[in-house]
């Protein structure tokens, strides 16, 4: 080796060492023609194809719905049109937006979702902290009740919820004051109040899960942090707001994103608490399952009572409405998905 190495001085600070290397083909062979490399390539390809396939499964319905949203009724009479429209039109979007009051519904849904998400995130953090860091009699019993609320689906309680909120009162105080002043004839039912009340008491959609997540998260935070804060003269609340909440920003973001998007796409509570009311939300039946009058006219004139095609067309209009509902959410998600995933990664949920 030493004898074959040629050392030449190139400049003042540089030397160049030339030595005989194996020919390129040999080196490539050694590098790439071995089982280690094969295995790596195969596992890489397998992984990539699998992920690609499942991504396709996830994205295909969206893609097909977007493609079909530009169908015009005339497309449905063509036997060769399956996925790509022959007579594309933006009518579906146009009339859903103008006639079904999309923008107003968007605003209402945005306000309600934001309100619920902020309240739920904060309240669940608060409750979760209580379960995680304080030992008191009944802690595990009440936590069991949290899991119970997660277990009993609110859907089977629908009628009981309606009755409860219609007659919601406390010793007759509310009826003689609040309802009279505001002229609410059906109690809290038909207003945003049930949403706020349920969010503020940790009973909203899957809030049990959020409380569980926060409890696990706060259990992972060392007690020394709080002890130091107490020693420095902070009270429990000040410690929570000034020390603990800033520590839990990743988890707060995760829970906020989940509760915001679940409230946004929620269809059950919306139609249960706000049926036929003036406030139309994106998920109200009045928006997504109502066929705009103009579209109905168009489809009637083109399809001439062809039942199959008419049904297909109304399904397409409904799917387009669904796309309009989730589109703002998807845009928001694409901007903040990084935080969602980082949040759960750094949540320390591992330390159950």
């Amino acid at each position, binding site marked *: 080796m030493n004898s074959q190495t040629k050392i030449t001085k190139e400049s003042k600070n540089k030397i160049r060492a030339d030595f005989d290397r194996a020919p390129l083909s040999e080196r490539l062979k050694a590098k790439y023609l071995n089982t280690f490399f094969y295995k790596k390539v195969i596992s890489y390809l397998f*992984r*990539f194809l699998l*992920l690609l396939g*499942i*991504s396709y499964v*996830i994205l295909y*319905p969206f893609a097909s*719905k977007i493609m*079909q949203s530009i169908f015009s009724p005339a497309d449905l009479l063509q036997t060769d049109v*399956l996925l790509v429209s022959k007579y594309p039109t933006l009518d579906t979007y146009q009339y859903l937006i103008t006639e079904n009051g999309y923008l107003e519904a968007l605003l209402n849904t945005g306000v309600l979702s934001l309100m619920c998400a902020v309240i739920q995130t904060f309240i669940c953090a*608060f*409750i979760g*902290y*209580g*379960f995680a860091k*304080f*030992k*008191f*009699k009944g802690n595990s019993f009440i936590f069991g009740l949290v899991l119970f*609320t*997660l*277990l*009993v689906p609110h*859907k*089977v*309680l*629908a*009628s009981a919820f309606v009755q*409860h909120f219609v007659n919601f009162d*406390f010793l007759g105080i509310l009826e003689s004051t609040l309802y009279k002043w505001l002229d609410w004839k059906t109690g809290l039912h038909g207003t945003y109040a049930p949403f706020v*009340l*349920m969010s503020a008491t*940790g*009973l909203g959609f899957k809030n049990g899960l959020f409380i569980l997540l926060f409890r696990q998260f706060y259990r992972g935070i060392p007690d020394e942090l709080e002890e130091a804060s107490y020693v420095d003269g902070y009270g*429990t609340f000040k410690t929570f707001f000034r020390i603990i909440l800033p520590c839990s920003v990743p988890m707060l973001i995760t829970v906020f994103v989940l509760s915001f998007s679940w409230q946004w*796409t929620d*269809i*059950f509570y919306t139609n249960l608490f706000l049926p036929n009311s003036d406030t139309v939300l*994106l*998920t109200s039946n009045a928006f*997504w*399952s109502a066929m705009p009058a103009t579209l109905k006219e168009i489809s009637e004139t083109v399809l001439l009572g062809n*039942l*199959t*095609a008419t*049904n297909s067309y109304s*399904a397409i209009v*409904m799917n387009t409405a*669904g796309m309009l*509902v*989730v589109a703002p959410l*998807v845009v928001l*998600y694409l901007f903040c*998905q*990084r935080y969602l*995933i980082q949040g*759960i990664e750094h949540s*320390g*949920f*591992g330390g159950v």
Partner: protein
Amino acid sequence: MNTTVDTKNKTKKRKRASLNTRKARMGWIFVLPFVLGLILVYIPVIIESISYSLAEYNTISAIQGGGYTLTWVGLDNFKEVFKLVVDSKTGETFIEMMVTDLGQQAIDIVAILMLSLFIAVLLNQKMVGRAAFRAIFFIPVVVGAGIMTKIDATSATILSTASGMLEEIDTGSVAGGGFGGIASAMDIGAMFESLGFGGELVTIVSDLVGNIMNIVNRSGVQMLIFLAGVQSISPSIYESCQVEGASAWEIFWKITLPMLSPMILANAIYTVVDAFTSEGNKVMASIIGENGAISPDPIAAAKAWLYFAMVAVALMAVMGICSTFVFYQRRNDK
């Protein structure tokens, strides 16, 4: 000397006790919102729902003032539910439907857990386009629930009520899935039978493949939780394993799986709850009914509580089975 030490201990003890009570009081204040919610909303609602299940419901006509009456009938509603036939063609009773659904859900739950664990491990590895894959895989968490499922279901019913053939448009692609076709196209059944598997297994597998869309959509939250769990395993454990010469296969079974077992328990509970309470399963659909049950329905309430009792038993069983396998990494603090 002794006495001084004793008094010191005593004062210390008393002080600690008072701190404890103070902390307990703060604990109650922190969970107060939830307790208030229980008292003001949840418990009355639960009691109301149970009372429906034990009563007969009669509306009062509008002339007499409107509203409704509930008359106590004891367990009659439950007896009726036991005899209730849900499918007039096959004569399937509600109880039979519940049991069949339980078996179906059990298969789905296992599939969801395995898929989400597998995907979480894959998504944790370094590769090209990892960020994009992660973004795609969590889309169902954000938009999958609620309205999209409802729209898919509604458009599927609209299309199935259409009288003629549905050749003009691919029903599957309108109604979201469209993957039922894959199983038949590949003829998985024939493939497995030629391999010598039994008929039962073939139906299970081909059902799962046909259902893949549904299963992927339902495993988003589980993936998130597993991913968090995988991230929390210390890399030094893997490093020392590799130094010792363990293969990737061994590392998965001996390190990743045991370290993830608490997450498997949490996810199993979540999946069970989610699967049994989702609107998508047959029993829930039968309980909720078609009009969303705005007015009290004693039979539906009785069905719901019966079903809930079964789910609670199933959940206990899952928790029991899983917690025997759970491995907790012992820590100094607990």
